């Protein structure tokens, strides 16, 4: 049988299987050519355009051949500050190609991608979608030589030494370390399999929702919506079919706590999802796992099977669905579109997912940490949680700490902890700026280190990046703006065009070409983008620029030396160079 037919036979031929099908083709052939797309469109009863619009949306899908071994270099700012360039150059020199291309023999393709969730062990790359962290020049050479000699990647990874905890288990076998540095007293209470489920089985759905509401748990994905209320809303919508979706897309640069939760707390996560399914009356669950974490898929599926064998999930199948490289798919409605086999473009809200979510049915989307905490709350009671933290922000929060610190990794804190305390704990090195909550969060300067992590001061989805005094503020901001320009889904103009304009203005400041009025332009455009964009990406993308302009105006003002507003910098020699060259002058 033709390969495509085999894949379709395995996956099914409805549109919601499109992304798993495309994944198999991409991995198998190294590209999804236009011919393949046309074949596929006939078999799936879609138009070729409906396939192409999906292929072109996701970073890991490509019409052109990406090589037998596909290498993606993490382009986060943390990697930048950990000799990423040296690693990149080593790959380029060893393979004799530029980033963004494939070796002539087709064996290797070298590309860049947004943060792959390894900021605690940077610089890292994905090789054939397996992350390899803590790279050095030597390591790169060893890996490439081994691959060239036909040694299997799994063997190379084994020889480099497996990571800690479940990373070395049979189902993961990765080089990754968990780097759990600070264990608090809530999340890290010993797990006993099935305990939370069995407690919940004695409770009515209303009861479960009440306990979660009373605990004060708010979503850990960033927006901080009260979890109990979300479950209640989904419960109240009448429908035969409802879904529970775990958002494991963890795309915010600098975040990696979900990676560790998925590795070490997968049991609690499943219990949280099962409890949620009972509370809202859902019949199916999905774990939307970012493509960068595909190395965890077997491990998660193994645990699901284990739960099934233990009789915990008879009427609630849980499926692991692999994303394909798109930050925007972490936005819940974009995630649902992606689950339906489409481009990950956010929907207009309302209706919210709890009313009309996956396939139009009521759907609860929660972050990994939210489900894990919910399971713990059911085990230990709402007070065990609500007694921790602050008035506005109950309980604990996992932070993924990276950057210029001696001890990067996972930290469990009660909400309300001050920045300076965190910096002490992680042994920050001459901390000068901290980006709280990733690029979509807040940039603060060392004058503000008494501020606190909480929903009414510094909210965060968990990313905590520390920058020492030798880092340039503008390098950091440029990296963030590049990220947003790359990751904007392009659906609405303020975000698609506005982020480019903001990046251009920032480049002017960075290169000393800005005028004083450009700072007002940054504020104006920042406001336009954040107030008029459709979804959270555009609403928050100007944040780092706006917050640093507010807290550190002197950096910007000092970068502006030419105050002449009438005549802007324009290099006529450079602009006419091409013309002269054409005429051989």
């Amino acid at each position, binding site marked *: 049988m033709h390969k495509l037919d085999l894949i379709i036979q395995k996956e099914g031929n409805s549109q919601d299987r499109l992304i798993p099908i495309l994944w198999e083709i991409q991995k198998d052939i190294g590209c999804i050519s236009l011919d393949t797309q046309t074949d596929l469109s006939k078999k799936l009863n879609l138009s070729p355009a409906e396939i192409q619009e999906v292929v072109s949306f996701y970073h890991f899908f490509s019409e052109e051949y990406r090589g037998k071994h596909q290498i993606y270099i993490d382009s986060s700012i943390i990697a930048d500050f950990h000799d990423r360039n040296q690693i990149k150059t080593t790959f380029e020199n060893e393979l004799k190609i530029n980033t963004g291309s494939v070796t002539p023999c087709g064996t290797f393709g070298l590309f860049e991608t947004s943060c792959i969730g390894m900021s605690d062990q940077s610089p890292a790359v994905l090789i054939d979608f397996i992350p390899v962290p803590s790279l050095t020049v030597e390591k790169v050479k060893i890996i490439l030589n081994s691959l060239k000699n036909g040694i299997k990647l799994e063997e190379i990874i084994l020889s480099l030494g497996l990571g800690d905890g479940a990373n070395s288990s049979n189902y993961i076998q990765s080089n990754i370390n968990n780097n759990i540095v600070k264990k608090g007293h809530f999340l890290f209470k010993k797990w006993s399999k099935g305990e939370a489920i069995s407690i919940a089985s004695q409770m009515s759905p209303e009861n479960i929702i009440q306990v979660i509401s009373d605990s004060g748990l708010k979503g850990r994905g960033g927006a901080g919506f009260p979890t109990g209320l979300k479950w209640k809303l989904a419960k109240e919508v009448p429908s035969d079919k409802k879904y529970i979706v775990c958002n494991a897309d963890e795309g915010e640069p600098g975040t990696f706590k979900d990676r560790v939760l998925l590795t070490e707390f997968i049991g609690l996560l499943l219990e949280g999802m099962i409890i949620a399914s009972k509370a809202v009356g859902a019949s199916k669950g999905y774990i939307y796992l970012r493509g960068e974490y595909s190395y965890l898929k077997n491990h998660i599926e193994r645990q699901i099977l284990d739960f099934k064998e233990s009789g915990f999930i008879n009427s609630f199948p849980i499926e692991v669905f692999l994303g394909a490289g798109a930050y925007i798919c972490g936005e819940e409605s974009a995630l649902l579109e992606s689950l339906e086999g489409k481009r990950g473009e956010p929907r207009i809200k309302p209706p919210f997912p709890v009313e009309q979510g996956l396939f139009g049915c009521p759907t609860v989307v929660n972050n990994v940490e939210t489900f894990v905490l919910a399971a713990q709350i059911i085990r230990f009671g709402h007070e065990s949680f609500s007694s921790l933290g602050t008035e506005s922000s109950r309980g604990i929060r996992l932070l993924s700490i990276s950057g210029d610190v001696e001890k990067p990794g996972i930290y469990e804190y009660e909400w309300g902890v001050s920045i300076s305390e965190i910096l002490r704990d992680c042994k920050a090195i001459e901390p000068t700026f901290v980006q709280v909550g990733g690029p979509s969060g807040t940039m603060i300067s060392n004058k503000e280190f008494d501020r606190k992590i909480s929903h009414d001061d510094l909210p965060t989805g968990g990313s905590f990046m520390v920058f020492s005094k030798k880092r340039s503020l503008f390098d950091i901001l440029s990296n963030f703006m590049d990220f947003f320009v790359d990751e904007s889904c392009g659906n609405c103009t303020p975000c698609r065009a506005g982020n480019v304009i903001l990046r251009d203005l920032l480049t002017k400041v960075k290169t000393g070409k800005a005028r004083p009025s450009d700072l007002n332009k940054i504020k104006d455009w920042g406001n336009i983008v954040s107030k008029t964009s459709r979804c959270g990406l555009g609403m928050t993308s100007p944040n780092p620029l706006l917050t640093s302009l507010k807290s550190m105006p002197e950096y910007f003002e000092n970068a502006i030396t030419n105050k002449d507003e*009438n005549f*802007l910098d*324009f290099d006529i020699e450079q*602009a006419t160079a091409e*013309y002269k060259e*054409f005429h051989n002058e």
Partner: protein
Amino acid sequence: MDKKVISTISLAGCFGCHMSFLDIDLKLLELIELVEFNRSPLTDIKTFSKRIDIGIIEGGCSNDENVKVLKDFRKNCDILISLGECAIMGGLPALRNHLTLKECLEEAYFNVPTSNHNQTIPRHEDLPQLLDKVYPCHELVKIDYFLPGCPPSGEIIWQALAALIKNDKLEISKRLIKYD
């Protein structure tokens, strides 16, 4: 009230905006009571002979001559207006921005059906040198006002000038600037 002094110029444009300017029809009579024209293709005056109140720029910058003229306008005018799509965004000429200059010149001189086939691309010190791209005016000098349209209607041009001259607030109805 002293008459305001106006200058206009067409850079990399098609003179459509100037035509639209003339389209203010009878208002021209009213305008000429309020303003005098200095350097402009309308008067054929080639140099500034006094300080200018309002400079109107049609077209973006496609060559070094455009750049020189634009800077000269900025130097001599109190207020500078980008008039129309080409001045504001580069417009049709900027379609060449995604081609290299070589591709562009070869297409224009060799490959088009109307090519004279003598296979030379003119180059002379008196000919302006093409820039690598077509630039909108505000990337080179400060522009005080932007009047959008391709071309902007005579009505917008008249209302904007009248408001500037009389120091009134300009309120352009949506009908005049809605293009889709």
